[in-house]
């Protein structure tokens, strides 16, 4: 068995089906499923998770607990004191 013209001709009838190149071109234009999944995850799912995280964080601090939040407690105190003063103010005006 030297360099084999016989073995070369053995597979000569094995040729690609008609339209194989066109099929390849079509496949190349289609987005790859895995790549698409990765893109959707990185661009949409990850963005969704980030948005949800921000939303949860926002809901966690609002509405704030007036007892726990010193700023709001101060505001309530001011408000309360105004209420307390209001009758006197009214009576003074009268």
């Amino acid at each position, binding site marked *: *068995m030297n*360099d*084999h013209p*016989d*073995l*070369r001709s*053995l*597979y000569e009838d*094995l*040729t*690609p*089906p008609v339209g*194989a*190149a066109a*099929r*390849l071109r079509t*496949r*190349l234009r289609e987005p*790859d499923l895995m790549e698409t999944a990765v893109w959707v995850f990185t661009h949409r799912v990850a963005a969704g998770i980030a948005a949800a995280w921000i939303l949860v964080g926002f809901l966690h601090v609002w509405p704030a607990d007036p007892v726990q939040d010193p700023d709001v407690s101060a505001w309530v105190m001011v408000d309360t004191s105004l209420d307390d003063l209001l009758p006197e103010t009214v009576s003074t005006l009268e």
Partner: protein
Amino acid sequence: MMTLPTDIDTDAHPPQAVFRHGVDAWYPAIYRHIAASTYGTGLDADDLTQDVFMKAWRKIDTFDGRSSMKTWLYAIARTTVLDALRRRKIRTVMSVFSERGASFEPEGDRGDGTAELRHHLRLAIASLPEAYRTVILWRDVDGLSYAEIAAIAGESEGTLRSRHFEARKRLRDHLTRNGITP
């Protein structure tokens, strides 16, 4: 044997042109190699060839022209075939035959025994262990040089020469045992 164009200069052409050149020049040869490698296994050579070129397109940016386009595509074809055989748990073509419990009938026999002889020769090659089968196909069917085979397999030319010698011996023994004279 079809004369194929020489390799493309990757520095002078954009990746799309390099890839298009690869498809035009090597698609039939890669298809034939895959069809020969998977003969009798039931794997679809057309699908696998498409996969090879899809992979090549995705990796075209990494093709720097240090290896030839031909050996690069053959290397992708080798891993694609091995992966497909592994996925289908096909170790040898003979295991497929024994699972089916029947012998394959050659197609397109013209009554002169040519198709039958061709069928048995293809089966004999396909039933060789992968390392021997691929070296026979690369050298004797695809007409690659030992240097090109070494570039694909990542082994020395000396190793591949002795493996090729052993592969031919095994093939000859197999054919003699089965009373086939090529």
